[in-house]
């Protein structure tokens, strides 16, 4: 795939939101294919992974429109185009025309016209800017259609048709080339690990040949919240685990998945998987990153082609297990806490109870928000949306709803376990003068270890 029309955009280190700078001129179309080729590519790549499950979902929609009311984007904009199922319209049309059981009928009678490149261009905004694949729409759907998964598939098509938003394409290409979407190259990573080790006086394990636990980090943490590395190291050391960071497999984010390039998604996952295999890891710990959990925990084995030879845990799950087994003793934090569930970890990942167990061990008063937990409102920054400047206005509107939801709990402290959500809170909080901080569950645990409990 050529990317001659895409220009690299500089990283933006000043903003609280860690992305590329706002491009002066947008290049939202990549490559030099003809229009027909783009449509062809889109359809081919959409149909490629199509199976019984996706087909069932495509068939089942009754056009009731309920999904709009579960979508943070529609709720914030009131724009009917942001109705989740509408975001799939061209692909639903293509499915009916090309792949469904009645495709022959639709095609010969031309009941569903061929999708055009203009439609695809129009839908770029709907598939990338206004969907985080948070899956809340599935909850409200009377047919239980997993729209998020279908949006993921539609992104495969869009990527191969060269129709990815400029910023998202840039960071993805960067990730594929440099190993990190946001400049956290292996040497940067190594430097920052050492820096954090010195700064916080913790033993850092890096590039150990053998270890039971492989710890991953996301670029956001490496660059923006490096304390996460120290906190993780502190906890693992405290528990006496054999663990390591590896410069050949540290990046937890998977922009291949977010942008829709399955080939790259596989490359990115395989880097981690082979590193874990190489060092004989029994457990891979994922950092506080939502989509990383989706990519490795639930899609990793499918990329690998066989079951993974190690366990994959989100850091909150690891902490919950440690608290459960008594390996980790925590000081009591006398505060009331509201927890923001990252969609990909909680609702779509299944680890919802884990952070609650940890918070319980911290002795905080957990104030559940209305429509929290598995039904949590998405922060609107996931799925790569936060990188796209075009999406900012709407994202702030969503965050305003989000702030209202959390504020109404009356909690003194806000906690989450996703650094992408966290940076969205930080940046939007500044923009909207929220006046509160979003804290990391991991860091909260690391700060409240009972030091001599183990010795």
């Amino acid at each position, binding site marked *: 795939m050529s990317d001659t029309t895409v220009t690299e955009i500089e990283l933006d280190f000043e903003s609280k939101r860690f992305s590329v700078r706002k491009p002066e001129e947008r290049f939202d179309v990549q490559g030099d294919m003809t229009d027909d080729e783009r449509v062809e590519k889109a359809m*081919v*790549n959409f*149909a*490629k992974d*199509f199976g019984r499950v996706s087909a069932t979902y495509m068939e089942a929609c009754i056009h009731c429109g309920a999904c709009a009311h579960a979508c943070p984007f529609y709720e914030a904009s009131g724009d009917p185009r942001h109705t989740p199922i509408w975001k799939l319209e061209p692909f639903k049309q293509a499915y009916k025309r090309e*792949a*469904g*059981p009645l*495709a*022959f009928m639709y095609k010969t009678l031309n009941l569903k016209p061929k999708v055009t490149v203009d439609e695809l261009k129009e839908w770029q905004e709907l598939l990338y800017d206004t969907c985080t694949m948070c899956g809340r729409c599935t909850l409200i759907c009377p047919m239980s259609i997993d729209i998020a998964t279908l949006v993921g598939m539609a992104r495969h098509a869009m990527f191969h048709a060269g129709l990815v938003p400029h910023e998202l394409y840039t960071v993805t290409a960067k990730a594929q080339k440099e190993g990190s979407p946001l400049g956290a190259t292996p040497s940067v990573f190594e430097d920052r690990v050492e820096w954090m080790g010195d700064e916080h006086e913790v033993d850092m394990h890096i590039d150990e040949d053998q270890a039971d636990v492989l710890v991953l980090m996301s670029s956001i943490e490496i660059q923006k919240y490096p304390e996460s590395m120290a906190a993780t190291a502190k906890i693992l050391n405290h528990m006496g685990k054999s663990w390591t960071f590896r410069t050949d497999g540290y990046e937890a984010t998977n922009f291949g998945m977010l942008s829709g390039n399955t080939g790259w998604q596989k490359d990115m996952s395989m880097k981690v998987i082979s590193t874990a295999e190489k060092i004989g890891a029994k457990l891979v710990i994922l950092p506080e990153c939502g989509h990383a959990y989706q990519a490795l925990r639930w899609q990793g084995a499918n990329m690998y082609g066989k079951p993974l030879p190690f366990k994959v845990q989100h850091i909150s799950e690891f902490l919950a297990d440690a608290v459960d087994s008594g390996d980790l003793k925590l000081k009591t934090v006398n505060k009331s806490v509201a927890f923001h569930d990252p969609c990909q970890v909680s609702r779509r990942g299944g680890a919802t109870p884990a952070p609650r167990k940890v918070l319980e061990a911290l002795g905080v008063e957990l104030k559940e928000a209305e429509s929290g937990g598995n039904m949590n409102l998405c922060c609107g920054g996931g799925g790569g949306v936060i990188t796209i400047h075009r999406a900012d206005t709407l994202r702030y509107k969503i965050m305003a709803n989000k702030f209202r939801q959390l504020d109404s709990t009356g909690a003194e402290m806000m906690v989450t376990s996703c650094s992408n959500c966290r940076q969205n809170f930080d940046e939007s909080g500044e923009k909207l003068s929220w006046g509160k901080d979003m804290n990391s569950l991991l860091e909260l645990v690391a700060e409240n270890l009972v030091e001599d409990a183990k010795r």
Partner: protein
Amino acid sequence: MKEHDLTLGEELRRQGISRRSFMKFCAGVASSMAIPAAMVPAMADSLAQARRQSVIMMAYQECTGCLESLTRSFAPTVENLIFNFVSLDFQHTLQAAAGDQAIEAIETAMEENWGKYLLLVDGSIPLKDDGIYSVSHGQSHLDSLRELAEGAAAIVSIGTCASFGGVGAAKPNPTGAVGVDEIITDKPILNVPGCPPMPEVMTGVLTSFLAFGALPEVDRLKRPKAFFADTIHDRCYRRAFYDQGKFAYSFDDEGARKGWCLYPLGCKGPITHNACATLKFNQGVSWPIQSGHGCIGCSEPDFWDKEGFYKPLSAGQWGTAEGIAAAAAAGVALGAASAVMSRRNQDKISGGK
């Protein structure tokens, strides 16, 4: 022929029948024809002015059941007033004459009343093979009907056979039997279907023809609306049970004994237009539903061929189990074929990648 010159009123007076008796007859006819009671005096006046009407009644492919039914109104009741007044110039079952004499009687009646006589037809008329399946005195009934119809003022088809072909036209209709109005198209025709028809209808039709000089208003099947506007179901005394959902499901169940609605037992009341429910048969003794049997729809065309008398109206033809199985098999084949096509497409795509 002096008799022919008297009006009905004069004739009545001659016979010493009082106007009061005549009024009573008119009230009876009006009641049966749903003519407003207020119109009775006018109807009586006009009827009294009527002159004796010549009637020729022909029996074609028939069973004489209709005549049997009609003669029930010939019994000594007020209705005989009207039947006594018409001049029944030919009816081969009732008259004494036979053979050549009978034919002569027809010819005389036709000549004397050309263009004025009323032709009553009983039985269907076979068309197949030039109508040779039904012949009297060397003449096919098809020819006979055409000849008689030419000089008739109007034709009344008595019974379902003459009206719609009836049993003769039931599948497979070997003689190609049809009703009168499929052959004669240029004369006023009135159908009095029913197997047998109700005698009161005949009385009403004759009275109204005499009183008003024309056939009464008819529906799309040329049946007098006065008797055929409503369905049996509309007027059925068991209708209340239908509305309440109380039904007989077999002829010996609780519902049947309690006289509940016979719809599930195939009653065709809802689609049958006739006056049985109000007039009843045999001088008002009873009628089929009152006797515990559903209506078979005998006054409707093709009632013989409507999927059996005991099949509920709402039942349809499901087709055979084999047919449905074959349909399912075809569905499997089509589904599999479309899936194979989709899979092949996918292979082509991933092969190309």
